[in-house]
């Protein structure tokens, strides 16, 4: 602690910046951890529930139980779109076949849109982790270079290059690099971890939307 207190103003600012980076990235790590964990668990439970149920409207009434899963968002969007298509279908009793195909297209489009918005939601804030991981070592290095510069100035003033003069300044300076690494390492690890988890969730969403479309198309074609 003394070593930080005796450092120069630039080094202190760098340390403060790195500390705030670390605090924010840990905020994101904790938040994302809870978010992804919930999404995984509830998606699993929702898929179980989805395959057990016979009817879409039965699922739609229960869907709030799994509100953290991205799949429920897809289901809601697809179901709402499907309801609209069916309502339109019943109003206009004309050429049913063409509208049916158009209906499936509509549902597919709305599912794709919902998937995109869910991906955006899941990946939100993750870029900050990547930024922290890649820049905070450099910020720390900047603090170190600055600290060593001032240490050398001190050497020039005292006119002696003994270890007792050089060592404290360099130790102060190296603190900045250490803190930079401390901030960067968890950020990079968490970024990679969440990237993987989110890719799994995206795959799940894709396969769910194809399943959903299959069901819709089967039912409309069978009508």
């Amino acid at each position, binding site marked *: 602690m003394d070593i930080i207190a005796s450092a120069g103003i630039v080094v202190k600012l760098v340390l403060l910046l790195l500390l705030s980076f670390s*605090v924010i990235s840990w905020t994101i790590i904790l938040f994302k951890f809870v978010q992804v964990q919930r999404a995984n668990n509830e998606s699993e439970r929702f898929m179980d529930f989805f395959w057990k149920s016979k009817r879409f409207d039965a699922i739609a009434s229960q869907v709030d139980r799994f509100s953290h899963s991205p799949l429920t*968002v897809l289901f809601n969007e697809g179901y709402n779109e499907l309801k609209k298509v069916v309502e339109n279908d019943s109003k206009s009793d004309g050429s049913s076949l063409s509208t049916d195909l158009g209906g499936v297209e509509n549902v597919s489009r709305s599912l794709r849109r919902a998937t995109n918005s869910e991906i955006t*939601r899941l990946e939100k*804030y993750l870029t900050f982790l990547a930024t922290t991981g890649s820049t905070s070592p450099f910020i720390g290095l900047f603090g170190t270079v600055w600290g060593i510069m001032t240490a050398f100035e001190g050497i020039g003033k005292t006119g*002696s290059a*003994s270890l007792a003069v050089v060592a404290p300044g360099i130790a102060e300076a190296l603190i900045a690099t250490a803190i930079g690494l401390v901030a960067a390492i968890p950020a990079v690890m968490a970024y990679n971890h969440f990237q993987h988890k989110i890719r799994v969730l995206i795959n799940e969403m894709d396969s769910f939307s194809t399943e959903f479309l299959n069901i819709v198309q089967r039912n409309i074609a069978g009508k």
Partner: protein
Amino acid sequence: MSSRIPRADTGVSVSFIASVVIHLAVLSLFAWYGRMFPPQIAIQETYYVDVVSLPVNEPASGSPAQLPAAAVPPPLPVPEPPMTEPLPPPRALPKKITKTIKPVSPQKPETTDSYFAERMAKIERNTEARREEAVLEKLRSKVKTVDKSKRGASEAGGALSGSRYADYIKSRLEDALKVTSSYTTNNPEVAVRLTIAPTGRILRLQIERSSGDAAFELAVRRAIDLAGEKFPAPPGHTVYENGFVFRPKSISSGASH
């Protein structure tokens, strides 16, 4: 969909608080650790290792004849001279050292030819050990500052301890000068008169003469500052004054008092 976003934001604020708490906990843990186990800087402590300066002190303290005495035993083939030779120093020394002589005397009767070389080696080793013991004993008694009473001859003892103290200070200054040394001219020279208080603190530092190398002067000042933190009390608890001539390679002490 719309109900999701506020929930996400509360999640962010909760995890932000958790993150701040974690950081505070880690920082306070580090602070606590630093306070519990303060880092020990060993640079100053190494000055206490006196192994190098012990042989330096020794010839100055005892008698100049000690150095020749150390050289004499090997060339002499007869066992008798080395036996008598190392004896005088113990006589001058406190009684404790005579204990170390006792193991030597029982060996005396066994004078077989095969035993001869072995005994020579043993005797030499013993004299070496005794000499080291004597030096350590002297240093110990000096630390206790009762050397005058132990040594008997007060006048000579005082003079001896004075020069030994000067040597001690000189070796401390040499160690410190090795750390701080810097100079810009060839063979710079600075003569300094130091006054040391009975407590071991430096009372006065007066540069009497300088070759004009400012960097070396500064180095000398810093060396004195550095070494001055560790000076023991001068013998007899009196104010001690001595001149030292600093050169980059060596320090010579001037006339004491």
